[in-house]
């Protein structure tokens, strides 16, 4: 089919063709970036924490009115924690439990540095600390790839402002690779900050995500350490693994047991007892919301653009009934007419997507500067181009089909 007559005809509808082209270009630019944001967020949400999340939950307690400073106060708090733990572990629905400062995704990060010399101040890699004991690996379902677990006698009481400077440490594989790229972290000595006592690495777990998903801690999100310490403070979190299928029962039983031990404590109503699914949902709420919003925008946007193409194509068909009649009278088949309008649409769409591809990269460049987004992959633009060409052809099809049904007799009408 000759393309010249189409171009000549389009020049008589310059404004309309340009407007549709512009709309397609803008749609492509926004849809590509929206799709890119959606997949980035979904990938983020889908990252495994490294722990076995099913059947896991936490109970946060707060106990006001007790002093926390001084040896006697600390000993009292530690005795309370041991009593709590004994009560929790004795419950029939509980498989295992330990006390800690925070859990992966719980949004309360303790961070520090691991130096390889005693005087190396903050030169080592950053790490996020989890306090734990010999039950931690089992409770979280962590996979120990090297070394050994803590022994009960290695776990010491730890108050909020005590220095994190343990004699032993279990670290994540990501942190081990950062510290010792050649491997073999077991038995090595590190120092948590300047003039700290030596810390020996006794174990490496496969994967363990830090407590926060916020941007500031992203660079060391997988560089985590487990400190052999029982968090004995006025507020603390119990990480608890329920027996399979008993999660709901255990989530009720544990607070009751804790209140029975000490009714003066507070377990906050809104976020005191949370399943790990709940912790995960809270951590990624903004990402999930963003993906939903961008998805909704894409769907509505494509609908509006499709409707616009249908509207303008129909209008053009209506305007050219007589000319179509003449072509039909001169021997053009229905298929010729159909193809003409589809080709016209393809021409406009291709022009639009070419401009739109440039605009997509321009918008992405701006988002990169403003919001530190990643670079848009070409695949998204290619996918968007294909989608818009298909959408354009599908939208133009009904008007084009109607055009092809215009009888030759139209030529004689005015």
């Amino acid at each position, binding site marked *: 089919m000759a393309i010249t007559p189409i171009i000549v005809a389009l020049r008589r509808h310059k*404004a*309309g063709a340009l*407007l*549709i082209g*512009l*709309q397609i270009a*803008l749609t492509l*630019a*926004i849809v590509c*970036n929206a799709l890119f944001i959606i997949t980035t967020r979904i990938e983020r949400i889908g990252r495994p924490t490294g722990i076995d999340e099913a059947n896991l939950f936490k109970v946060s307690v*707060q*106990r*006001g*009115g007790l*002093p*926390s*400073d*001084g040896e006697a106060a600390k000993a009292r708090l530690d005795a309370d924690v041991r009593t709590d733990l004994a009560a929790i572990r004795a419950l029939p629905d509980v498989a295992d439990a330990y006390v800690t400062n925070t859990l992966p995704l719980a949004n309360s990060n303790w961070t520090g540095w691991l130096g390889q010399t005693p005087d190396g101040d*903050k030169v080592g890699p950053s790490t996020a600390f989890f306090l734990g004991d010999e039950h931690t690996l089992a409770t979280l379902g962590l996979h120990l790839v090297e070394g050994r677990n803590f022994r009960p006698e290695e776990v010491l009481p730890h108050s909020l*402002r005590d*220095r994190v400077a343990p004699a032993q440490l279990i670290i994540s594989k990501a942190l081990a690779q950062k510290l010792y790229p050649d491997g073999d972290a077991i038995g090595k000595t590190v120092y948590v*900050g*300047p*003039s*700290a006592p030596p810390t020996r690495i006794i174990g490496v777990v496969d994967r363990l995500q830090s407590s926060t998903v916020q941007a500031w801690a992203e660079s060391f999100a997988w560089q985590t350490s487990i400190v052999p310490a029982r968090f004995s403070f*006025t*507020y603390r979190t119990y990480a608890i693994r329920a027996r399979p299928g008993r999660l709901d029962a255990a989530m009720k039983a544990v607070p009751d047991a804790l*209140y029975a031990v000490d*009714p*003066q*404590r*507070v*377990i*906050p*109503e809104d976020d005191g007892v949370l399943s790990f699914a709940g912790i995960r949902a809270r951590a990624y*709420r*903004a990402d999930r*919301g*963003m993906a*939903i*919003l961008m998805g909704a*925008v894409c769907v*509505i*946007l494509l609908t*509006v*653009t499709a*409707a*616009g193409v*249908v*509207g*303008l194509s*129909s*209008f053009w068909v*209506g*305007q050219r009934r007589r000319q179509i009649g003449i072509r039909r009278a001169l021997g053009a088949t229905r298929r010729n007419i159909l193809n003409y309008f589809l080709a016209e649409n393809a021409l406009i769409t291709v022009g639009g997507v070419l401009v739109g591809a440039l605009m997509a990269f321009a*918008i992405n460049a701006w*988002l990169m500067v*403003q*919001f530190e987004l990643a670079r848009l992959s070409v695949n998204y633009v290619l996918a968007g181009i294909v989608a818009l060409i298909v959408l354009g052809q599908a939208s133009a099809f009904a008007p084009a089909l109607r055009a092809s049904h215009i009888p030759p007799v139209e030529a004689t009408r*005015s």
Partner: protein
Amino acid sequence: MFGYYFQLGLRSLRRNPILTALMVMAIGFGVAASMTTYSVFRATSRNPIPQKSAQLFHPAIDNWGPEDTEKGEPPDSMTYKDVVALMRAHKAPRQTALYPIASALIPDDPSSLPQRQGAYAVYTDFFPMFDVPFIFGKPWSAEEDEGHAAVVVISKKLNDKVFGGANSVGKQLNLDGRLYVVSGVIEDWDASPRFFDLVNTGGFDKGAQLYMPFTRAIELQKQSNGNNNCNSDPGDGWDNYLRSECIWLAMWVELPDAAAAASYKQFLTNYVDEQRKAGRFRWPNNVRLRDVMDFLDAEHVVPAETQISLFVSLGFLVICLVNTVGLLLAKFMRRAPEIGVRRALGASRKEIYFQFLLEAAAVGVAGGVLGLLLTGLGVMGVGLVFEPAIARLATLDISLVLITLLVAVAATLLAAFYPTWRAAQVQPAWQLKSN
């Protein structure tokens, strides 16, 4: 004339119901998406205390040095020793240090459970500085600040719960097993964004239920319920912690005018100089004194999600407008013969403009009404998409209703300019001849 054109417009719109529906839908969706995200953006970027935002200042000094700070900015929190020094110097007419704490309310009835209450430890100036409205009583006195007194100011919500809404001034409240005397009851007040505690809340959080003297909280060794950052080991125990370089406190001062602000900044500089002379700092002066809006800006209080959503929705609106320009153009040009007849019969170009803009305005109003309904749905649904603490701030109030309608009509008129201009350019002779 107006009524006649309006009738013409309606008739024309009814002639192509599908085209009209497409335009109304495009305008409605575009406006609704923009207004919904705008309602969230507006909530997060608003001035929390417009009447005083230029008189309230957040001082910051660099006690960590270039090695431990980012982009040359001093830390946004302060150490205890600096806060105490600034409070003692009392160089501002009103000033307060503050930090978030959590207290457990112990009910009189032993069978009910204690409840956690979000709280702040503040100085008495906090209340007049931030225009906190009192229902009963008043803030505690400066002497009570000095004396570490066991007094509290409570929110209306807590007063309703504990005292059944009655005037509870002078009554006692059991917090963490200690008794406190209520000195005042305030409205359920919160600054939104919570500029005075951005570091711990990001600006959006559930409201605090009670306030107690800072000095009292320190005496009870109450740990901050928010962030704590240390660049070196503070050593064991509370006293070492208070002496350390750990930052965990906010400081706010009220300064009536620019001269007072300048002299306060000078005071901060002098203070840092003294500290350097004493050997505490080994780096150049780096102080900040930001007012509320500057501080909100520096702390990036508007989440990136909110901004990106707004920009994407505005892009969406632009596309809807381009769509409307195309459809209006189609619609108007289809009536070229009619325009030709009208022009030939003596209608001026101005009258054609008027007639077609009025028709477009009708589309705009219809789109605005649809947009308003969709915005209502959108604002109800923001909880699915944004953080709950932010989503609850987005509301469909009178101003948003007016803005929505205005944006719809203005956008449609803007879109109609080119098609109307084309319609007015129709040559009557040519049209009459070709028909």
